[in-house]
């Protein structure tokens, strides 16, 4: 196990270094002088230009610049936003809980609906339920989620008036941010109706963000269950007269879950991609919306730092999933 852990870390470190190099190179690859771009349309005097170049270290050789950047990153200094003048890390950490909360609810929704749906479809193979589930999940998988979000807004917010269109909480509530998770903070605040309002704000974005993971999990669970249900030990379990419920849930599902866990882990990347679109549509104040706005505002330090942090989160979660996977499936470790 220890050797396996080491080999995973052995991949983690170069990948992280690679991502730092990529984010470092990004700004330098942009056409035009970064200092002039940061200065904007007003321009800058030659003296101030030289001063700024020295300040950002652009006058030094590339390799030196990279190692300086890497050193800063490792110390947790990701630069300062040229628009808000706050450290990028502070901005990121302030907005991250909003994205995390949305992503957690979305993936929970996907797991809670996708797992049982996939199991039922596999057990009732070729039934109308199986066909309709497979059809629906293929549609979900093919869905342009920015459009899906707009459709839900059109139907539930505009036509029915059930849910709000944007944000995390109505303006009438004043909730002290304690954890950054609105569902918890509204409960802690004890303000009547605040929690319900937070749920109302969260439900549509969570459905939109959870749609693709839901489709993927349902499909994966179904095909994995089908494979396991055909195994000899399942036949044996059935032959010795075990209750069909126990055969499915105690014998089959446990083994079928192994590839499903991997697929759930892979959804982190899907969730981050989805967050950019979902947060834009629902004006959700999270990382996705912030990154996109930083790009529109040409706030390169924010983009650079934000991308690096998002990539780090994805890499870390993927590594944790790999390790978890080896805990559930000891065969992996021996390979």
């Amino acid at each position, binding site marked *: 196990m220890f050797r396996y852990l080491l080999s995973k870390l052995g991949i983690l470190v170069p990948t992280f270094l690679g991502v730092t190099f990529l984010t470092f190179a990004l700004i330098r690859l942009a056409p035009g002088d970064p200092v002039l771009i940061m200065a904007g349309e007003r321009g800058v005097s030659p003296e101030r230009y030289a001063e700024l170049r020295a300040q950002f270290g652009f006058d030094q050789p590339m390799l030196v610049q990279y190692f300086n950047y890497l050193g800063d990153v490792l110390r947790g200094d990701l630069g300062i936003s040229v628009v808000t003048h706050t450290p990028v890390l502070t901005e990121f950490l302030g907005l991250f809980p909003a994205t995390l909360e949305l992503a957690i609810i979305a993936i929970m929704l996907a797991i809670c609906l996708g797992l049982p749906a996939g199991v039922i479809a596999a057990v009732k193979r070729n039934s109308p339920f199986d066909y309709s589930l497979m059809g629906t999940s293929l549609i979900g998988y093919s869905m342009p989620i920015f*459009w899906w979000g707009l459709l839900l807004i059109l139907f539930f917010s505009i036509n029915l008036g059930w849910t709000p269109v944007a944000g995390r909480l109505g303006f009438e509530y004043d909730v002290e941010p304690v954890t950054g998770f609105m569902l918890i903070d509204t409960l802690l605040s004890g303000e009547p109706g605040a929690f319900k309002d937070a749920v109302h704000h969260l439900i549509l974005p969570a459905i939109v963000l959870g749609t693709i993971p839901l489709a993927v999990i349902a499909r994966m669970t179904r095909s994995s269950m089908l494979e396991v249900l055909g195994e000899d030990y399942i036949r044996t379990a059935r032959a010795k007269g075990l209750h069909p419920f126990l055969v499915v849930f105690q014998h089959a599902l446990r083994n079928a879950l192994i590839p499903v866990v991997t697929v759930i882990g892979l959804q982190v990347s899907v969730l981050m991609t989805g967050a950019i679109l979902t947060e*834009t549509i629902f004006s959700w104040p999270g990382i996705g919306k912030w990154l996109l706005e930083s790009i529109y505002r040409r706030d390169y330090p924010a983009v650079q730092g934000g991308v690096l942090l998002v990539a780090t989160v994805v890499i870390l979660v993927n590594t944790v999933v790999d390790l978890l996977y080896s805990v559930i499936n000891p065969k992996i470790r021996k390979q």
Partner: protein
Amino acid sequence: MSGETIETADHAMPGPVAEFWRAYRRNVGAIIGLVVFSLITVVAVFAPWLAPYDPAAQFSDAFLVPPLWSDAGSSRFLLGTDDLGRDLLSRLIHGARLSMSIAAVVVCLALTTGMLFGALAGMARGFVETAIMRFMDILLALPSLLLAIVIVAVLGASLTNAVIAVAIVLLPHFTRLTRASIVSELSRDYVTAARLDGAGQLRLLFKTVLPNAAAPLIVQATLAFSSAILDIAALGFLGLGAQPPTPEWGTILSASREFIQRASWTVTLPGLAILVVVLATNLMGDGLRDALDPRLKRG
């Protein structure tokens, strides 16, 4: 075509194409996908002749006219018009032409570059292989749309840059697939036989190994086509892809967003077009995978 195939299949051993078709047509979804995809391709190819109007033509007497089936609809504009009085049907038809050809270009770019890198990694091994594959791992570590958005942000928002960005995002899948197939094929007996026969590296690659690695690449290319359509539309929607007034589906959707309350058809129809193409492509991809990959066929 299918009648002919059955005849030959009854009498002799079916050829690879006939065998593929026999496996493919058993999948109803795949056939539906193929039919829809072919129809949209025809529409895309003949867009200038099929579209009733020029996609950029503005009718000042017809702003936000609803589609035919609603009460205020007119037969002049079957799918209604947008806020500038442009015929939505014509824009969607030209959008099909644009989206399909862009996706094709993206997939070709990603496929050829990916195969090149993959072949290089698989044949050269050693440091070259490690360097290429680690770079692909890094690209895969970034969420796909984020990577595309950042590349576009660096290069500037335009359709060409969006194409480059999405192709880079899809690249690692092709590289990994090509390398994996090459590595596994190289250890086979028939490759050793070809080598003993005096086949050089290039001949070995193009004549012997790659044809045998083609099946997974074709399946991946189909799935990449649907990702390309979705990603290009998403970039267009975010204002980072095709710029207005280009009739790209995501761009049309983005421009109509503010009219969602007054003129919902300007939002629902372009999205529906994207969904239908992506769905048809995915159905086709599933069918291709089942028919081309014998390992999955049994499942």
